[in-house]
């Protein structure tokens, strides 16, 4: 029983880390540009498929580094060509646009790589369990946790310590003033979008090692990411991180006692948060 509980908590923590990584990217874009990126799950899939394609040439580690960067470039390109035109308009339009993009990406990946699930090779020593007692704790899972932690730390360091991060944070609060102070807001939003998509791409590369590779791999992750943002509080990145981990662990623990409700508990948490604290756990008052 205890082992089952630990297993599911660890599992929930890993899933939660994925939710959080997706949600942080979504949150970055939402905070600065007011765009809900429906295609985020699609970018996750693109990250996975690019990594799959690159592995024969670069190996596992090369693909791990290169695929998210390439995904981010695709994101930057799409922002330049399409999404940029919709800033300042009713959020309805950017929602519909990214919605259409999500369709195109899912169908496009199916067209290029096929609908069937593709095998994704991770190094043998990573796939092996660490010990007999904790059989579920494969090296890959530990590695994922370490990497996600490092990336999230790096993200918060970038936001907290660099000039780019300063501008992103300032722009979240008052974009107009940032623009008046001489910052090129177009470039800022572009880079910020790329940063968000980088996180989606990285989540994709890591996820395929665990979930396998299918065109709709992002589907099961996008809704919980939305809920992470709602639970954590709009406009707060630490909140988003907390929200992701919270619902991940909650759904993991629920799996032990009531497996069929593991998905539902996420929505229950969201409803409770919206009733008790509509701005979210760490959200600022009066932002929405």
């Amino acid at each position: 029983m205890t082992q089952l509980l630990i297993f599911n908590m660890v599992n929930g923590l890993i899933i939660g880390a994925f939710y959080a990584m997706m949600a942080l990217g979504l949150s970055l874009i939402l905070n600065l540009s007011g765009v809900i990126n429906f295609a985020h799950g699609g970018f996750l899939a693109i990250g996975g498929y690019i990594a799959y394609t690159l592995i024969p040439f670069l190996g596992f580690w090369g693909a791990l580094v290169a695929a998210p960067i390439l995904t981010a470039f695709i994101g930057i390109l799409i922002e330049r060509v399409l999404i940029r035109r919709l800033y300042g308009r009713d959020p309805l339009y950017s929602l519909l646009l990214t919605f259409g993009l999500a369709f195109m990406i899912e169908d496009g990946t199916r067209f290029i790589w096929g609908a069937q699930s593709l095998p994704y090779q991770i190094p043998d020593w990573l796939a092996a369990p660490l010990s007999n007692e904790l059989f579920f704790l494969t090296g890959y899972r530990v590695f994922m946790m370490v990497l996600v932690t490092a990336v999230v730390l790096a993200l918060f360091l970038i936001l907290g310590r660099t000039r780019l991060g300063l501008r992103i944070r300032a722009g979240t609060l008052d974009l107009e003033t940032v623009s008046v102070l001489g910052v090129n807001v177009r470039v800022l939003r572009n880079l910020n979008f790329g940063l968000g998509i980088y996180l989606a791409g990285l989540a994709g590369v890591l996820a395929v090692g665990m979930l396998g590779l299918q065109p709709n791999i992002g589907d099961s992750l996008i809704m919980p990411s939305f809920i992470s943002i709602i639970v954590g509080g709009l406009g707060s990145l630490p909140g988003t991180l907390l929200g992701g981990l919270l619902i991940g662990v909650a759904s993991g623990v629920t799996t032990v006692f009531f497996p069929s409700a593991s998905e539902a508990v996420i929505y229950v948490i969201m409803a409770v948060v919206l009733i008790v604290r509509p701005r979210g756990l760490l959200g600022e008052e009066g932002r929405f």
Partner: protein
Amino acid sequence: MLKLDKRSADALVWLALLTAPYWLPLIGGYTELGSRILILALAATALNFLLGFTGVLSFGHAAYFGLGAYGAAMTIKYLYPSTPLAILVGVVTGTVAAAVIGPMIARLRGVYFAMCTIAFGQVFYFIAFQWNTVTGGDDGLTAWHRMPIDLGFTSIDILNDNKAFYYLVFTMFAVAAGVMAWLLRSPFGRTLLAIRENERRARFLGIPVDRHIWMSWVISCCFASLAGSLYALLNDFVDPRALRWDQSGTFVIMTVLGGMRSFWGPLIGAAIFIELQDFLSSHTENWESFIGLFFVLVVLFFPRGVLGLIKRKSTS
């Protein structure tokens, strides 16, 4: 450009809808297609009540559409085989769900509102998907069909007579559209427009904004669930895809495509969209890509929709 005043345009629309089963075959359509367009147009018109006339962005209307559909289907399958009862249960199910969820989201605005409607919408998708024994899970609810309507002195065979079913849908559409148009013309509807135009000013005038948004939301979801129950009856089948977020997106694109600020916009949008979907899915396997591309093109080049464009041309 032909000049039409509002009244004769309305009359023309009603005449076209009333005679649709007779002229549709002449242009290569069929009666069932007409029913489908009218049902989805009803859902889009209901959405537009909230989106275009209250200015609140819901991206989760498929949930209430789907609840209506499941409510109707399950009534006939498990409860009692009667079409009117099925429609009634479908509408009540969807409306009650909307009324309960409403207070949680009515105080949210803009993208936050949209996100929460999407997320809440998925709850029902998961229930329908997971609760295999009752809802049939991923395969949907089959092995039932709509029932002829028994009026006592006569019975209307909507099961075998497509035209009769079309006129049932038409009647429902007419009643719903009439009620919504009447509401919009009433002081309540004018208040909604005021909220859309300037929420802060409306609040300063003493209007309880949140309560009005909640009411508009419930009305909108009520008619969406009516459309859903008719949709289940049309197909004699319902599956979780009727509840999914892509269905919500479809309603929004129909509304935008036709013209958000016009009452008839969603009807025109639904007709164009369904025709296009029919055409694409019969011509290419990758029709989803083209639908996605269509979304993008509409947003970039056609954001005012068909009627918005016509209106602007005739005023300039």
